[in-house]
């Protein structure tokens, strides 16, 4: 799993989940490269705005285990404003991402 990280939030040691391409599709940095400060400097000079990082490398917040109770509360809360049932993979991903984000934020 990957997560999109703003160039300003990249930390030393994060690992690229996908190669960084320029607008012509040429590879600037390959997949699985462990980012060092020199890479970050170069990415900035190329005006790269974000990169996809392997999720395990994203700082502690995303590693937090979410309790079932909190998840249940977040889902119940959303049911007040969502009166439809997710019917496809996109809608499921949309709702799950929002629930997860809100639970992590409330911690």
């Amino acid at each position: 799993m990957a997560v999109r990280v703003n160039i300003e939030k990249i930390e030393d040691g994060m690992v690229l989940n996908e190669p960084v391409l320029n607008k012509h599709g040429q590879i600037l940095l390959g997949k699985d490269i462990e980012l060092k400060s020199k890479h970050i400097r170069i990415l900035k000079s190329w005006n790269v705005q974000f990169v996809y990082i392997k999720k395990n490398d994203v700082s502690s917040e995303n590693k937090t285990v979410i309790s079932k109770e909190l998840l249940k509360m977040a889902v119940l809360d959303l049911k007040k404003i969502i009166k439809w049932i997710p019917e496809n993979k996109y809608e499921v991903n949309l709702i799950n991402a929002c629930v997860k984000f809100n639970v992590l934020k409330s911690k």
Partner: protein
Amino acid sequence: MKINKNINTYLDKIKELPTLPTIYSTFMDVVSNPRSTAQDVADVISQDQSAASKILKISNSSIYGFYGRISSITQAVSFIGFEEVKNLIISISIMKIFKDSKQIGAFNPVNLWKHSIFTAVATRIIGKSSGERKIEEFFVAGILHQIGKLILYKIDPESYIKTIEYARYNNILCKDAEQEILGITYTVIGEMIAEKWNLPASVRNAIRYHHIGLYEGEKNKMVAAIHIAKILGLIMKINSYENELVPKPNAAVWEILELPENFFEINLEYIMQSYYESETLLLKN
């Protein structure tokens, strides 16, 4: 509870609403002249100090990603381009017209702008991920997608607040309450004002059709992206009023956008960060 069924009342009131500030028309004159240089364009923008400073800040924000490397309006024009600057001027000018709208009852214009800024930021990010290359108008269309709500509020605040209270009490969509109570919806009136302001046809269509997500059955990525961005904002409770109901996405929109399956899981944090940054830049004087 029907308040107004006469559409002509709204048409008359729209005529009385302000036109876009001079900076916009002067800017358009300069841009349409093929001999104009980035410096000429910068000179026009610099006459409006507050617009100039906002454009500078936004150019350096994560929306465009220049992070402090743009230090003058001339640079902003050359780096992000005439089209992007034009769309930022439209957004800033229109926000300025409504800056004095005050909160009454359940309706807070500041919350409406927050929802619009969120939609603008998310529309742009969704648009890029959907592979669309021409995304210059995505931001301004997101900012303006519910301008009609502000117009309805400005024309008759009391009736509009009653409409929102009706929507909340009956747990229905705002647009449906508008149709039932006022006899007109924010999407229709939004298109009217966009016409009065001579905004590009693509932006007018986005204002009119974003709630469906399709424009006359066409595969229009901008209309589709706003549709999803707006729904995302409402789920995140960045809404115009408390407990605003979330419409169901139009299934056809997903096929138009062709986003990765896990798009929201991967991008939500990035969208939220970009939104907080833009909200501070655009709403602070």
